[in-house]
């Protein structure tokens, strides 16, 4: 009886959006891998057949989550977090290498990516820690712990050589910002990113001149107290040091293929047959879709496997080519609705844990969505992260679904919290 109660209280809009997204994903994978020899969408030898199975598994797991006590995830948040850290450490020891980075654990026929699980674990742990009544986020120690919860798994993922998946953890800064800290850090981070990109494009000496000009500008504008002048000068020195360290970081920390990808985005390299090939083919596929697309199953670019990894990270190409701008608009609107709905629901939670957790998953979905679509249309470097609910792949679909269903459960249970 109780479970019926719970299911009746589920936010129906979120569920509809979720089902719409997985269905679009399945149909797109079918279109990307379409082959007349295997026309049945449930053909298990084909990627779309497997995706159908993954969707089924995700729904079963999702339903099971709805039946579990809502307090379970809050209570066991650290257990999940600890488990994900163990998996991340384990992958460094026994992981198998797939395309340049060691980020998969092979368990017989099943392979999964601990970094996917770590996003879930980190969301729970962060929500649990910040949501505790005795945590005062204004204290330095609390801030340190909150950032620590985010950066420890991030560094472990980075150690696997998977910079793409590691970058996802940056988005937790937005969650911490919502909870009252990090406004300055957010602005600082954005400025740092801007300086980073600019210093890759422009000679560092021009950068210095630019920074000094901005510095002079600030000196004119601000209240020239001794303290303010000192602060602005310190920022200038830090910014200059950063420009120099970017140079070092770019050539010494990033791997050559990552450097090339960034260079192509910045327009410094034209290599349409080498590394830039994916991107160009992907942009042609999407561009050729035009306003209304070529029609379902009628894409030509995608049929000839011109776009590599098309059913995984480049699934958006199929949508762009076959359903055109209209389809892309609809899909982006759907994602936006998903993320805004989660934020809206998060704000009505009585428990801080539920709210923070909601923000965490909204931000994770957002990061994946922005980076994945951005990379297929040449806005950001090609980072191999999947499009939530759409990309082919069991471990990512299951993790994204679990994240969402845990939130659905929290929301459905919100009235029971006093």
């Amino acid at each position, binding site marked *: 009886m109780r479970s019926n109660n719970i299911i009746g209280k589920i936010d129906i809009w979120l569920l509809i959006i979720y089902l719409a997204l997985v269905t679009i994903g399945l149909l797109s994978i079918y279109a990307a891998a379409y082959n*007349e020899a295997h026309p049945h969408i449930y053909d298990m030898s084909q990627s779309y057949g497997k995706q159908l199975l993954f969707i089924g598994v995700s729904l079963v797991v999702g339903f099971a989550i709805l039946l579990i006590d809502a307090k379970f995830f809050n209570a066991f948040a650290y257990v999940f977090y600890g488990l994900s850290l163990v998996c991340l450490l384990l992958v460094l020891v026994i992981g198998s290498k797939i395309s340049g980075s060691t980020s998969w654990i092979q368990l017989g026929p099943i392979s999964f990516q601990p970094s996917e699980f770590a996003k879930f674990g980190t969301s729970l742990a962060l929500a649990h820690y910040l949501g505790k009544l005795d945590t005062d986020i204004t204290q330095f120690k609390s801030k340190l712990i909150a950032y620590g919860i985010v950066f420890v798994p991030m560094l472990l993922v980075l150690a696997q050589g998977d910079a793409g998946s590691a970058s996802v953890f940056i988005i937790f800064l937005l969650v911490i910002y*919502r909870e009252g800290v990090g406004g300055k850090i957010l602005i600082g981070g954005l400025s740092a990113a801007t300086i980073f990109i600019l210093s890759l494009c422009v000679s560092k000496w021009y950068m210095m001149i630019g920074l000094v000009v901005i510095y002079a500008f600030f000196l004119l504008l601000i209240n020239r107290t001794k303290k303010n002048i000192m602060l602005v000068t310190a920022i200038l020195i830090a910014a200059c040091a950063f420009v120099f360290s970017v140079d070092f970081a770019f050539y010494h920390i990033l791997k050559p293929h990552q450097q090339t990808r960034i260079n192509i985005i910045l327009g410094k390299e034209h290599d349409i047959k080498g590394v830039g090939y994916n991107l160009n083919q992907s942009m042609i596929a999407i561009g*050729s879709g035009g306003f209304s697309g070529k029609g379902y199953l009628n894409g030509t670019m995608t049929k000839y496997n011109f776009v590599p990894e098309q059913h995984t990270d480049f699934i958006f190409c199929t949508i762009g080519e076959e359903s055109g701008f209209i389809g892309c608009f609809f899909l982006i609107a759907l994602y936006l609705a998903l993320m805004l709905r989660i934020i809206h629901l998060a*704000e009505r939670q009585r428990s801080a844990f539920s709210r923070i957790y909601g923000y965490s998953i*909204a931000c994770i979905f957002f990061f994946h969505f922005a980076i994945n679509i951005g990379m297929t249309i040449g806005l950001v470097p090609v980072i191999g992260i999947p499009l939530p609910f759409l990309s082919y792949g069991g471990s990512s679909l299951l993790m994204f679904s679990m994240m969402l269903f845990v939130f659905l459960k929290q929301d459905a249970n919100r009235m029971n919290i006093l």
Partner: protein
Amino acid sequence: MIKNKINYSQRKYVIGSIFILVAIILLTKLFIIQIVDDSYKQSSDNNTLRYIIQYPSRGKIYDRNGKLLVYNDAIYDLMIIPSQAKDVDTASLCKLLNINNEIYNNYLKKARKYSYIAPSIFISQITKEEYGRIAEMLYHYPGFYFQTRSLRQYPLPIAAHTLGNIGEVTKPEMERDAYYKLGDYIGKSGIEKYYEKELRGKKGIKITVVDVHNREKERYMGGAYDTLPEPGKDIILGLDAELQAYGEYLMAGKTGSIVAIEPETGQILAMVTSPTYDPNVLVGRKRGMRYNELLKDPDKPLINRAISGTYPPGSTFKMINGLIALQSGVMTANTAYPCSGPNSAPIKCTHYHNSHVRLYDAIENSCNPYFWQAFNDMMNSRRFGSQKNAFKFWYDNVTSFGLGRTVNSDIPFTVSGNIPKMEYYDKVYRGNWNAMTIRSLSIGQGEILVTPLQLANVAAAIGNEGYFIEPHYIKCFSDPNDSVSFEKHIININKKHFKDVKKGMQSVFEGDHGTARMSVISGITVGGKTGTAENPHGLDHSIFMGFAPVDNPQIAIAVVVENAGFGSTWAAPIASLMIEKYIKGSVVRPDLEKRVLTPNANEK
């Protein structure tokens, strides 16, 4: 904590705005590439892009003297894209293609089954003449176009088994290597199979814009996304085309094989298997049908007897036994054993000669009792401690000649033959066996089986006085940057012993009683050994192995003529003609040649 919540809940608008802002940025960029910027689109909605695979020319194959063995001829495949082949005037197209409506529908069904959108071959291998006629009218039929391909051609009708052939890829082959698409060709046997990756080159792609009238309008984006095909590598074989052709000429009408090897390099100079077929037969549209015909032929011309036929080596094995006995130290080249001719026991002598023979005479006269006694002495020698140790010594040395195993080089599908192992005898005789039990080994009979290729290789190893290079087809790639190398095997037997054995083999030709004295070639020293392999299924096989010249041999050869009787009658003369042909360039013994060519070889 409660306060914080109230203060900061306004930040949801900041976060929501970031989400919306990013979505707007994505949509703006999408708007630009999908609607504003034409460079990502095809020039008009009615135009389609056609991805034409540019097939590389497959590598050519030459013989050791630069004579062309395999080249390519242009041929055309009529392609179809079913999704574009709408509103086709079927009747007139059938007339143009010279097919009836039913065949047309069958082809269409097949193409649709492969893919509705991707191109597939509608009719393959249309000749140049037909192509000219059809291509002119093809613009009437949307969805159809031509693709150029090359067909293998063989200027000389020889070496079919060595060269191998190509055929359409099968489904498992496509699954193993994504390079291949339906209708592609792949090496199926011989050189074509082994060097498939080198010969095939790399496909390129030409992208063209095609209008509604099926006319190619322009290169898509000026050819920026095109890739050029990389031609396959040319291969130069160790094969001597003239020698090969001559060998096939000599073996015509007989069943058997000839293998000639250059001892210094291990390259195959000739590999004849008879009966054989003309490689040009397995080319073109009728390949499948003709292949089946060959497969059903009771003479089994598809079998390469040189690498997959196994025979008891008979007397040709005596040199190895002699070498091993010498190396074991139980005897020297001057040790003499008695022979009582047909009264010898346990093995009779089939030749008449004086008693008490030494190694040279024993080889010259092919004396069975000599080799039995030498083998028996070795097996019972105290220096090995036991007969099993002695057998192990024998086995290790025999296999060091490359016997009892497949060839590890570019010659595919070789068989291993058989050198019996100790475990085999332990099992058959329940551990209770001795030299007497296995006495047949001493004269190359019993369980021993070798292929003609292995036998030629043994001749090369003896000619080289103690080493051989793993036998192989290729000499080099035409590009000197691509090197090839094959393993060198050193045989652990003293060079001095080889010299003694070679002396005996020379007297097979030059001695008064030599079994091959009829086949002597003036001006060329030849070392060899005839053999007559007992065949339980019919007449004995005539076998020969040898090399020439005796010092620094240029050619090592093995000849097997099935069911032909004595080695001296057929195999030795054929080998001697081959040697003469190779070293002198021409044959000046018309009588011997004529005798070898008499058609009743199999009936003798």
